[in-house]
């Protein structure tokens, strides 16, 4: 298991080196800053200490729930320019269903339970804080209230 919280860009290739050795299925998710409405960058604030502890706890929970052989979460904070990766999740399992579901679950959890807050930066300067979406909350509910 590997948890990275950093301001620097991460090197996905280096991170994935040897990841999932022995597994049958590896899924990665990468979130990037989209070029929306003239956005120049995102600025991400986080809660040092709580961030690392909660990412570790939830990566472990995902590993147990989905029988993962490996899991990785990397998340940046600070200023991140349009086009750059913000975060990455990787999961390794014997079969594809578990690898997909674990990555999906970790993303839903990260979106609304990990202590990160985003602010948009335009050419004119900082804009407002990004407001949490109800759909993110609903997405997380899927994992506790299966239909």
């Amino acid at each position, binding site marked *: 298991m590997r948890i990275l919280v950093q301001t620097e860009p991460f090197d996905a290739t280096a991170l994935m080196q040897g990841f999932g050795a022995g597994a049958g299925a590896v899924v990665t998710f990468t979130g990037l800053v989209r070029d929306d409405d003239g956005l120049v960058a995102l600025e991400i604030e986080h809660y040092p200490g709580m961030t690392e502890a*909660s990412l570790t706890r939830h990566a472990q929970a995902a590993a147990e729930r989905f029988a993962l052989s490996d899991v990785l979460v990397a998340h940046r904070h600070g200023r991140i320019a349009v086009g750059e990766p913000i975060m990455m999740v990787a999961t390794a399992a014997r079969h594809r269903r578990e690898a997909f579901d674990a990555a999906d679950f970790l993303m839903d959890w990260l979106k*609304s339970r990990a*202590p990160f807050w985003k602010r948009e930066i335009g050419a004119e300067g900082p804009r407002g804080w990004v407001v949490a979406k109800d759909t993110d909350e609903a997405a997380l509910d899927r994992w506790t209230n299966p239909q």
Partner: protein
Amino acid sequence: MTLDILYFAWLRERIGAPREQIETSAATVRDLVAELVARGERHAAALSDLGAVRVAVDQVLSDLDAPLGGAREVAFFPPMTGG
């Protein structure tokens, strides 16, 4: 007891500081919020809409009714928007 109070994102901006240390005998988060609101306009404004505020006690997500006995750090922040 002595508590470190932390603020993030727009709560930090409204309070005007990322953290403060207070002496309190608040039994729950709700009691603590009442004490903070009484401190002045900035605190009152930041904590006026508790539906838009999340709380962590000693770095674990919690709620207004959580007891503070033994706690060292309480953080207030908006709903998270990570990923």
